[in-house]
Each structure stands twice: as C-alpha cells, then as structure tokens.
C-alpha cells in the first residue's frame, strides 16, 4: 500500500507541477473572463454609423408618412430598446437587475452601436420598376449611400375584394447591404404598413398593442415541501449541462494524463526500473489514483468556482446538494472506467501516435455525451434517456443529466446505474491490470484490438 501511495503521489506532483497543467487549469477561468469582458467588445454591434437613403414607390399612397416616422432615429432607438428589454426580462432575477442597469444611459449604444440615420426618398407612385431599380446605382462616392428600394403592392394596405387578403411589398437592395441594416429597414416597413392598415380600419394602434401584449408570467415552482420558489428555466437548462461539462472535464483530465504519462514512462524506459520495485498491479493502481487526485483537484476548483458564481447571484438554492454527491459518484466510476482503458492503451503502445488507433473507439464513445446531452436533458424520461442510463461508460453522463433535470429518475434506476458503473469499473481495472502485466515491456509493432484481447486472455 505504501508503494501505491508513493507512485500515486509522484504521479500527482509530477502532473500538477508542470507548466502545462497550470496553464490548462487556468484556461477555463481565463476563457470565462474573456467571454465576460473581451469577447463582448470584440463581438459588439458597434461600427461606423449606418446612414443612407431608402426609396419608396408607394402605389397605395398610405405608407409613406408612416414609414418616414418609423425610420426616424427616435423610433428606431425605441424599438431596439424594447427588443433588448424583452430578452432581459427572460433572465433570472439577479441577472435581470444587472441587465436593466446596463440598459440605462449610453450603455446600450455602446453595446449595439449608434442608431442608423435613414432618409426616405419618395418616388412617383407610378414610377417604373426598372427606373426604381436604376435608382439603386450609386451616382458617386459623395452622394448619400442608397440602401434599398421598397415597391409597395397596390393591396398592401387595403385588401382586394376578390381575395380579401393583404398584399406585401418588394424590396430591392444593393449587393453590399448588411443584414442588420436590411433588418432595420424591413422592421420599419412592417411597422409602417401595419400602422397604415390599422388607420384604414380605424383601429387605434395603442389599443391593439395593449390587447396583444402579455407580460411573461412570474412562474413559481411548488416544491414537495409545499413551498413555492421562483422558476429559472434558463438556469434549469444550464445546470445539467454544466454538470456534464464538469464530468467530462474531470474524466478526461485524469484519463488523458494517465495515457500520456504511461506512454512517456515507457518511452523513457523507466518502466523496467519501476517494475524492479513494484508489481505491475501496484504501478497501475498508483498511477490511476494519482491521476484521480489530479482530476479531483480540477473538479473541485471548477465546482467551487461555479458555486461561488451561483452564490454571488443568490442562486445557490437552485443546485441540490445531492447533485454534487451524484457528480462525485459518477465522476469516480466514469474516471475509473475510462482511466483504466486509457492506462491500458498507454501501457501497450510505444508513443502517442501509436495510441491513436486504439483510442479511436474510446474517443468515439466519449463524444456521445455531447450529442446526447440535448435529447436527454430536454426529455429525461424518454426511452433513449432511460436506456443510456444503463450503458457504461455513458450511464454516468446520462444519469447526471436526468438527475439535474426537472423530472429526476426513480431511485431504483439511480441505484442500478451506480451498480452498473461500479461493476464496469471493476471489469475495466481487471482488463487494464492484465494488459499492464503483459504489455509494459512490449516494444514493437503497435498492437491492435485483437492483440489487446489476446493479451488479456493470456495474462
């Protein structure tokens, strides 16, 4: 046991003491900081203010005035604010407060850029279509930029008697018009045409708006204890995915490192020196435990970071403590399965390049949690979700997604899934110990899957 401890502690210190590990472990917080600070600045909507002219051929004679009003800068600004406000209202309380603060003052302009300055040029109602399109040709660089031509259909505001349906309009644009400006123009046209229709029908715009507006409800969840709490649909979808990320990250950090250190020890010919002091089984167990500690450290850091973020927004109550316990259980079992297999591959090959063929099936299996995350978390009681909860090594991922969902699985399924994980971990360790015993000193043609199985049977 002392030797296993020595191997494990060397494995741990040799891994966490490297520059690569320290950079790697800081990478996630740095990426979060990047996405929180630098990325919004890089990806913001700011740019040079869009300004130019839009021509209107209005055969109805009812849209022009309304469109002029709709593309006025103050109308554009009000509409933009209403859109962002709607999105912020969907966010959880603390985030909503933060969002509402940032919507005040010049912050919105900083985020979205300045409001476009669009001028309306009304053409003759009987203007020829070809003539209207010709207008789009830019006369010279000093002239205002021509952004598009709107050709209203005759029945766009007043429906024809035969069909009773409203018509629409055609929009012609230069090839250089960006999607955002096009969207702004079309939204303005929509507002103008709808306004014209309402005026024609003698309906009041504000009345209609008031009738169709329904503020999002204040959804509250009634707990089994009879208390009601605020529902957070976005966070409820995010937390299972975060747990999945923690599990994948924890498993892969240690298992990947186990593979590379085993290959490195084999490549450096240090294996035989070690085997003169410890048995292959002690070596394997020591290495697996050492890398388990590395993974545990990474997980602990990231989970603590997540808990810190949630508690700072007073959202810690959203995470059931039992979820962290299940995360720990499924992390241990999944790591042991994947780590043992990766260690076995490391013991069998001469370098990391040789490992690629043997790793392919493991990597393909490990990609599945990403693909299955959405179908399982959105429908945790489906046949797919239940079946995947019992298929190792994916059952840990599937069960964790289901446990964190709004519809947790029954207890017997959880217990069975844990037992399957434990049994699979034991089988994986048994298999890896066989490979370690026979393959550590193998230097030659890289083995294939058939050789692997033959070794396991022979050892």
């Amino acid at each position, binding site marked *: 046991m002392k030797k296993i401890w020595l191997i494990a502690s060397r494995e741990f210190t040799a891994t966490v003491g490297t520059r690569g590990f320290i950079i790697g472990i800081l990478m996630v917080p740095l990426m979060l900081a990047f996405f929180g600070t630098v990325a919004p600045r890089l990806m913001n909507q700011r740019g040079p203010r869009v300004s130019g002219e839009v021509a209107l051929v209005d055969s109805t004679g009812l849209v022009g005035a309304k469109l002029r009003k709709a593309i006025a800068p103050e109308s554009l600004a009000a509409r933009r604010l209403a859109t962002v406000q709607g999105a912020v209202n969907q966010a959880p309380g603390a985030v909503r407060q933060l969002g509402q603060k940032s919507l005040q003052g010049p912050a919105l302009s900083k985020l979205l850029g300045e409001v476009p300055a669009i001028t309306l040029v009304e053409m003759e109602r009987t203007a020829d279509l070809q003539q209207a399109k010709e207008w789009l040709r830019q006369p010279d660089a000093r002239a205002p930029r021509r952004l598009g031509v709107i050709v209203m259909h005759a029945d766009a505001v007043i429906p024809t008697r035969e069909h009773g349906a409203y018509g629409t309009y055609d929009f012609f644009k230069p090839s250089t018009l960006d999607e955002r400006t096009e969207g702004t123009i079309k939204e303005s046209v929509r507002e103008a045409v709808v306004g014209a229709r309402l005026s024609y029908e003698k309906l009041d715009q504000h009345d209609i708006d008031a009738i169709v507006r329904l503020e999002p409800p204040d959804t509250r969840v009634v707990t089994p204890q009879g208390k009601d709490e605020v529902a957070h649909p976005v966070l409820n979808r995010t937390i299972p995915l975060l747990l999945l990320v923690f599990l994948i990250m924890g498993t892969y950090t240690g298992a990947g490192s186990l593979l590379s250190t085993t290959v490195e020890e084999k490549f450096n010919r240090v294996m*035989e020196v070690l085997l003169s002091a410890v048995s292959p089984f002690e070596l394997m167990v020591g290495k697996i435990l050492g890398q388990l500690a590395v993974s545990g450290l990474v997980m602990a850091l990231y989970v603590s970071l997540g808990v810190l973020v949630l508690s700072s927004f007073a959202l810690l109550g959203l995470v059931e403590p039992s979820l962290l316990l299940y995360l720990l259980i499924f992390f241990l079992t999944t790591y042991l399965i994947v780590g043992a297999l990766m260690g076995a591959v490391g013991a069998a090959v001469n370098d990391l390049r040789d490992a690629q063929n043997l790793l392919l099936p493991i990597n393909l299996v490990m990609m599945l949690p990403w693909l299955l995350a959405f179908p399982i978390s959105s429908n945790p009681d489906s046949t797919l979700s239940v079946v995947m909860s019992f298929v190792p090594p994916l059952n840990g991922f599937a069960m964790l997604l289901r446990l964190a969902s709004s519809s947790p699985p029954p207890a017997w399924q959880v217990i069975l899934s844990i037992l399957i994980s434990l049994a699979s971990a034991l089988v994986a360790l048994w298999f890896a110990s066989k490979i370690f015993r026979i393959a550590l000193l193998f230097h030659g043609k890289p083995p294939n899957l058939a050789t692997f199985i033959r070794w396991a049977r022979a050892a």
Partner: protein
Amino acid sequence: MSRGDLFARGYMESAIVLKGVRKAFGTTQAVQDLHLTVPRGSLCGVIGPNGAGKTTTLRMIMSILFPDAGELSVLGCASALEAKERIGYLPEERGVYRKMRVGRFLAYMGQLKGLSEQAATVRAREFLARLGLEKNERSRCEELSKGMLQKVQFAAAILHRPDLLILDEPFSGLDPVSSKVLRELLLEEHRRGATILLSTHVMAQAEELCQRVVMFNRGHKVLDEAIATIKRQYVARTVVLEPLESNAAHLDAIRASPGVESVEPVEDGYQIVLGEGVDPRQAIPRLAAAVPPARIELSRLTLEDVFLQRVSQEHEPTPVRQESAA
C-alpha cells in the same frame, strides 16, 4: 510452490533457483528448459551473445516477465514480487524520470525499495558524494551525461543495500574511468555479502569479475561452471610462435611437427593449434626445435574460446528470432 516446499528442497541456501524454466514470445523460444542455481554470496556472470536469452532470464528472475513453465525461487521466495525490497536491479534498458531532480530520483527509488524518506535522502546524498556527483543533486536527470546517468542508476540499484543484486549489462557504454568506479562499487557490494548476478556479452569482463559463469546460446544454457573449473577443464591448445628470422620453409617445418593440428601465418609469426589430447609441455619444445623462436607461448584461454568450443560441440538448435522483449 509453498514456502514450506522451498525449505524442504533446500532452496533457502541458494539465492536463485530455476527449474525447467521456459519462456516463449509467440513462436520464438527465448529460454528453453533452464535449470540454474546461484549460491548465496556468489558473484555470478551470465554471458552469451546478443539474443541468447540473458535479459529474458533476468526479467523472469525479477518477476517482470513470467515463465510459461518451470519453477522459480528468489531469496527463498516463490517469486521476486515477495522479495523486491531485498533485490537491486539495473535493467539493460535504463531509464529515469527526465524532469526529476537527481537526488529526488534516488530518494524516490530508495523509498520504493522500502527505505524511509529520511534514510533514502541521506543514502542518496552519500552515494552521490561517492560517485563524485554531489554537485548534481539538484540537477534534472535530463541534464546529466550518459555516463553520469549510468552511475546514478547503479546507485539506485544498490541504495537500499540489497541481498541480491541483478545487473544487466552494467558496463555497457561506459568510459574506462566510470567503468572502474562501478566495478569497485560492485565488488564492495559483494564483499558486504550481496549475491550478484550480472549479465554481459563481453566475456572478458565476466572472466575478470566473476567467480562463476553461466553461458547462454540461443535460449539454451551451454555452460554453468566456476571460472577456476573452466580453466582446468578447457586446456589451451593454441601456441603463438614468432621466429627468429623469416624463412618460407618454417610453415612446412611446423606442419611436420608432431601434435600440430593446423597452422596459420599471422603478423610476426604463426598461430598453431595443437591436436586434442596433445600435451603443450611436450609440443612446445618440439616446435622450438623445428623453428628457432624469438618468442613462443601458449595462448591464454579466454571465455570466448570456451564459448566457441562449447557451441561447436552443442547440437545446433532450431534458429530462433528474439523478440524485442527478449
């Protein structure tokens, strides 16, 4: 085999006992039906050409490889796994943790061999000082030259004062000065009472150091004798004669001398092989009479000569192809 059986068979008196041990890699027979006993306190050499089965045998003794058949006892235990802390091993393929500091590496190996952290650290410093590497205690292993590294690895093998020391090609790649230092350390361990089993393909080294040699060829043991016995059994039959003056007739005169099996001109003279059973004490004066010599002497018998003689006598086994693990 139980410990009781081992006692009953008197294995406790021997450091290593192998009985009918076989090892194959695929279709290749690396070691065939090997019987070997290494007495406690002896310094025994395992010699033979590359691919003879020496390394495979040492790895089986160390329980790094496991025999396909046969019985094995090491320091009275049924497996080296039970006695690893009493065994020092220097493998042929030597490796270190390249990024680890030299002192830490030695201490780590000492701890794995059962020393406490403190004892391992103290002994690591002692050995580094003895090997003239005290300034390298804080160096990373990758910063050391090959010779320095080999000394460190040798120190790692003997740091815990083992009862049995198994060394696979310990002097390969060493310069004469480093080789001498390691030889002195090795002999010191032997004087301390350790049983030493060392393999080499340089037979002169085994002849110089060992009390006993085991000779391998193509997976078979072809000789297992004390050096003194070998020298008694294998009488030298080669005479080197350097004539006083050059004369073309000398060749015929030597051939005509009684007891001469063959003669071959060499630089400055002739190499003469005497027939089997011919007493050199009688043949040399006859040769001196036939060709007046400036120098005439019985060529010294080497293990290489013995090996060649034994191999030529042995039945040629099926050619074997050694796998890398052998």
